[in-house]
């Protein structure tokens, strides 16, 4: 039973989805913008996690990520980076807040 990313359960997209839905854009463009939100979240999470790990553990993390092994990823991260789940959640929330600001800016 795999979700798309190991951190998918930490993402709350309702606010940005609603904000994007109110833009003067087509449905296809909305969906594309949402995929860009997802891509930015992913890069932000990977960046944060890599920065939290020692060189050897970065390799293990990338290896687990590349084979999409969520359980292994979490097991490894919890062993090596302590309470990283909260930090990942914060990174996701910060990224979404930043993107929300962008949306509000183009609307104004």
């Amino acid at each position, binding site marked *: *039973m795999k979700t798309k990313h190991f951190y998918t359960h930490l993402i709350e997209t309702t606010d940005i*989805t609603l904000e994007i839905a109110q*833009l*003067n854009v087509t*449905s296809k463009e909305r969906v594309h913008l949402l995929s860009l939100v997802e891509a930015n979240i992913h890069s932000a999470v990977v960046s944060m996690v890599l920065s939290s790990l020692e060189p050897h553990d970065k390799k293990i993390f990338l290896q687990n990520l590349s*084979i999409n092994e969520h359980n292994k990823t979490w097991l490894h991260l919890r062993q090596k980076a302590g309470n990283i789940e909260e930090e990942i959640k914060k990174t996701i929330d910060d990224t979404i807040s930043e993107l929300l600001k962008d949306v509000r800016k183009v609307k104004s």
Partner: protein
Amino acid sequence: MPKKSVHYQKLLKKWTKKHANLQKEIFEKHKDAFDWLENNSKQIAVGSAAGLFLLTNPIIAQIPNEFSTSISNAQTVDKKVFLIYDLKSILPQTVEPLTQTQEKEIAQILERTFNIPVTAELAGKRLNTSYGYIGQEQHLARYPGDNMFNHFEKPEEAEKYWKYGMAPGLGAWRYFADSKNSMTEEENLSEKYYIAVQTFLAPGFELNAKEYVDFFKFRKMLVVNPQNGKAVVAVIGDAGPAKWTGKSLGGSPEVMQYLERADGRQRGPVLYFFVDDPENKTPLGPISYN
């Protein structure tokens, strides 16, 4: 080629740049780890393209083609887009039974979107899955004497649906109505919008088959194509398909056509949840977003 909206163009530029900068920073800052992965990719069986995609998650340069929703008013809040995106974030990558947590989250989304109470488990009973591949079924005889020559009310219906033919046997619950003269509109719609589900694989079925059959018989379900957001309220009108087919349910010609699902190699998944409708207030057929 339609003109791209200003808001879209601005955000596309900004977010593509943001993402590219972040990726550049990641690869530069953690170069050793990426180099190691690349050099060892054969040993660790990075499913190459897929693995690298997970690492880099490249920006999709063009609008994806699979979202073919037509746009009548771009400023109207589009519930369909919410639905497609919200479901996409919860559904697993492969078509397989959902966890109870996923089912609950999806039920909430469907209720919020369609304003219909739905659930994967009703009165302690559930199907073997609530997410699976749907196959094409044939028309069913609604009453004794119903056949392909008198099945359709309008010529345009016959034109669209004749080709699917009528099942040689009756549905699992036999006829939908006792006779043509006594058939109600609801009974007529029940055949038009029916699904066949694997009642026989429901957990607990073998312990009390009669109770389960009574429960499933003409039970209303909400069936949703998660890839285009189209939804229809249908009844369980038959049992099947067999497990070996790789399909989890079947849809009447009208259900399949509305959901834009096809059988064979083009087959696709649907979500199907019980409609909690004790007073029989939820009408059968396609659901409008308005």
